[in-house]
């Protein structure tokens, strides 16, 4: 039983290592999906938002984590 729990925990941990980062990634995907699918704009605009949003997330989440560690 504990083995199955460990496997499930590992699987969840693969994608949700940091809950805030995962939520932010999903939010960027959601905004991109709305732009690509729910507006008159070219879906490529949604793709561009996805790309830029993810690039910014990498930098911002590292900065935020570093500041948190330094303030401890």
């Amino acid at each position, binding site marked *: 039983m504990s083995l199955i729990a460990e*496997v499930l925990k590992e699987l969840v941990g693969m*994608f949700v290592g940091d809950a805030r980062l995962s939520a932010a990634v999903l939010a960027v995907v959601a905004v*991109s*999906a709305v732009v690509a699918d729910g507006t008159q704009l070219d*879906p*490529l605009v949604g793709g561009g938002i996805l790309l830029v949003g993810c690039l910014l997330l990498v930098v911002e989440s590292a900065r935020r984590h570093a500041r948190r560690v330094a*303030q401890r």
Partner: protein
Amino acid sequence: MIAWSTAAPAVGAAFLASLVEVVEAFTIVLAVATLRGWRPAALGTATALAVLGAIVLALGPLLGRVPLGLLQLVIGVLLLLFGIGWLRKAALRAAGVIPLHDEDAIFARETAELDAEARRRHASLAWLAGLTAFKAVLLEGLEVVFIVVAVGAGRGLLLPAGAGALGACLLVLAVGAAVHRPLARVPENTLKFGVGVMLSSFGVFWTGEGLGAAWPGGDLALPLFALLFLGAGLTAVAVARRALPEAA
């Protein structure tokens, strides 16, 4: 015929990501073998590989039934979650915010823990050793399976990506058999950084295609995305280094 420009990123990503995972599994299997001999280590490893094979055989055919757009979207989002997480962690390690992964330390800790566990539970050390090897190979192997499926399924590249992963396994086994100690000199964080860059690029590419975006240049957009994520990762390292003294 699969174009080299299409297959190379998938094979490269699967090879490098698998290299990282297999090195981690190898450290634990070696700890088991050192403490209790190769028999339980090999048995645990072989059983885990059989379970992984069964998972692939059971789930593999289902992938063909999922519409391509949906498959790209789901796998793309999972790749983004996985890849950006790896890239961020590698950037934080490179910046000195969190400690580097140390295979020698993990080897020593795993050996001590296994020994203590056997004493505490009065259980057979061989059984615990086999179970430890099984868990290590299964858990790291699940990540390898996901990566192979994720970078290969969207373009029918499962076999080349699988070959990349197999190549990594064989390389680690060959080097591990030769040196007979944890592969602590593998530049694991640099590899993780590179893999995070590649998986994030694949994630944006598949998710965008799943949302209907036709990327300019088709597959050639992937190397451009990789360059952009490399830049973002390096910027993250610099920003995290600067944030440390600022906040202290």
